[in-house]
């Protein structure tokens, strides 16, 4: 059945300044609703996808036009380095956005060109193995030297 009508809950409507009316309502709804969460999530994934797609499209177009490969080989690492430095120095949304771009473009270059990376690895397998061995040997040597210096017996 009906509940007793309590007019006091409408007292704020009688306030003299319109802003009071606005403010009261704004402070009453601080929490996010589900639909707002949905739009935030979708917007963030859409932004990531946009950067990913831009990186992927650019890399594929460069592969289709071999004359562009030298320029890309110079420009992409340079831009990545600049963006990485910026992400270290920036604050707030700029930092997050630059990290997002690095992550998305990096993922796109690796995942979207897996066949090229595969072919490159096979073509340079001997060089890669030698480099890997040198790195391992160097690191092992340095580590043992440091370890021995740190553990000099009294």
């Amino acid at each position, binding site marked *: 059945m009906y509940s007793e*009508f309590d007019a006091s809950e409408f007292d704020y409507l009688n306030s003299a300044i319109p802003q009071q009316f606005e403010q009261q309502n704004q402070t009453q709804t601080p929490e996010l609703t589900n639909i707002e969460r949905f739009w*935030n999530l979708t917007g963030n*994934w859409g*932004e*990531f*996808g946009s950067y990913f*797609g831009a990186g992927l499209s650019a890399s*594929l177009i460069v592969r289709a036009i071999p004359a562009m490969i030298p320029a890309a080989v110079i420009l992409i690492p340079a831009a990545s380095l600049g963006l990485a430095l910026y992400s270290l120095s920036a604050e707030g949304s700029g930092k997050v956005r630059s990290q997002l771009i690095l992550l998305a473009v990096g993922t796109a270059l690796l995942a979207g060109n897996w066949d090229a990376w595969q072919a490159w690895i096979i073509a340079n397998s001997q060089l890669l193995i030698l480099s890997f061995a040198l790195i391992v040997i160097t690191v092992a040597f340095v580590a043992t030297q440091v370890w021995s210096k740190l553990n000099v017996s009294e």
Partner: protein
Amino acid sequence: MLANRNQAIVSGILSLSIVGFAGATALQFNDRIEYRIGNRIESQPAWLVPPKAEFRAIERGYGGIKILLSLLATGGMITTMLIARREGEQEPVRQRIKKYQEKAYEFGFAAESAYQMSTLANRYKKLADADEVAFEGEIEAAYCESLGIDPQQQQQQQLLTGTATLESISNPGDKVQPSAAQSAALEPKEESAKLPKLTNYPAILIHGPQGSGKSFLAEEEIAQRKAAGHKVTALDPHAGFNSWRDCEVIGAGMDYPAIDAELAEFAAEVKRRYERIRNEPNPTFQPWTFVCDEFTNWASRCKTSGDFFQAALSDIRKAKMYVIFVSHARTLAGLGDAKGMAATRDAALLEIELLGKIDPVTTEAVPRFEALVKLPGQPLSDRKLVKLVRKSEPKNATTNEASDAKTDIPSNSSEKDYTLPEQDSGNLLNPCGTGAEASEGAEGADCAEGSDSLLNGFLSEILADSLPPLFSNDFPLKSHERRVQLAKLVIAQNLGKQRTIWLLWGVRDGGRNHKQYADARAMLERLINGEE
């Protein structure tokens, strides 16, 4: 559950874009050559094939498709991001608007409740006043007794007793005759706004829902105009046999071409009259009224209906031509599809909107005897509510015909084969024949309210829910004692307390009416116990 349509769209685009990226990523870009070298069979891009290899086959790459898919998916992602960001900004605003709307609804509900409580309080105050009047009556009776006069005997002289009939006790000299011009079947009550004299307006629109009495009002107006010397032509595609008595009827049997031709004749007549006005010093014309019934249907069937409507609103006043439109609506589509004529319609038409209601017993549409009247040029919001009262007699009211003989109602009005739906049920507003409503002030002494048949007539109307609550101010029977008698008749029907209280005081149980309902129940108990 989706909150709005864009959620589905964005979800779909996002899914398609992900599928596009998956395709663009999974496919290989370059052609691959399958070759044999030594005992091994390998497959590599062309630039990795050793010079000494033996060619075996070629596998085509999908570079073009990969680029296309990648671009499409990127576009999808950008679209998703833009829509989602925009919706994310708008959503809090939407929610605030929704909250304001909810508050406004609650506030409106509160205002409505307050209004109802105020109205009820007013009604109870009037009831209290009525009780006071009754109390004064008792004092008067005591005073009569002190003088040796029997007040009961005095009162009974005014009532029907034994075999006395209405005619035997009524004094013809007491009857109040209506004024000469007021012979229409429907006319305003004296205490409310009045219906203007319709012949002063060249173009009139009578509209309203089915069963609200449009055609009836039009016919009564025609009767007056014919008496005033008008030539009347009725354009009615649905005219029945012998309807529009004494009028020229055009278009019966849905003969729209004939109506179209008559509209052309109307235009020609207007032109002829204006030519006479130009050429003669003081030409006289017979007034000519066109009645356009079922005008709603003409738009798509009569080519000239729009032009006719326009001419009727602008060209006919000086030519003594008159038009009465009868339609279901006042929209331009319902008025001959007269596009672009809204301002002219508002400025030139006298509009009478008749109100109807649903009869709770028969579930048929019946008139409410109320009309909203908009004078030409008046805004729609300034329409006046005019209460209408039936004055013409139902076709079976033969006993009243003799007493009506002196009125100005045209003689054919009681012979017509149409009646307003409520006319056969009790004849409440005219229980004693002509002039009953005009002599309302003298009802304390009138003959009608004392008769059992009258009370029974009221009773049937009350039980049919076609009258306001018995103890409300609007109830046609004004005498408190008679109301009490009638209330006892209602109680004797054993309808249950709730229904009885509803019929007597118009209050239902529950909610904010609890106090009023409790009061009404107490009064009902008093009535049942024989107290008044």
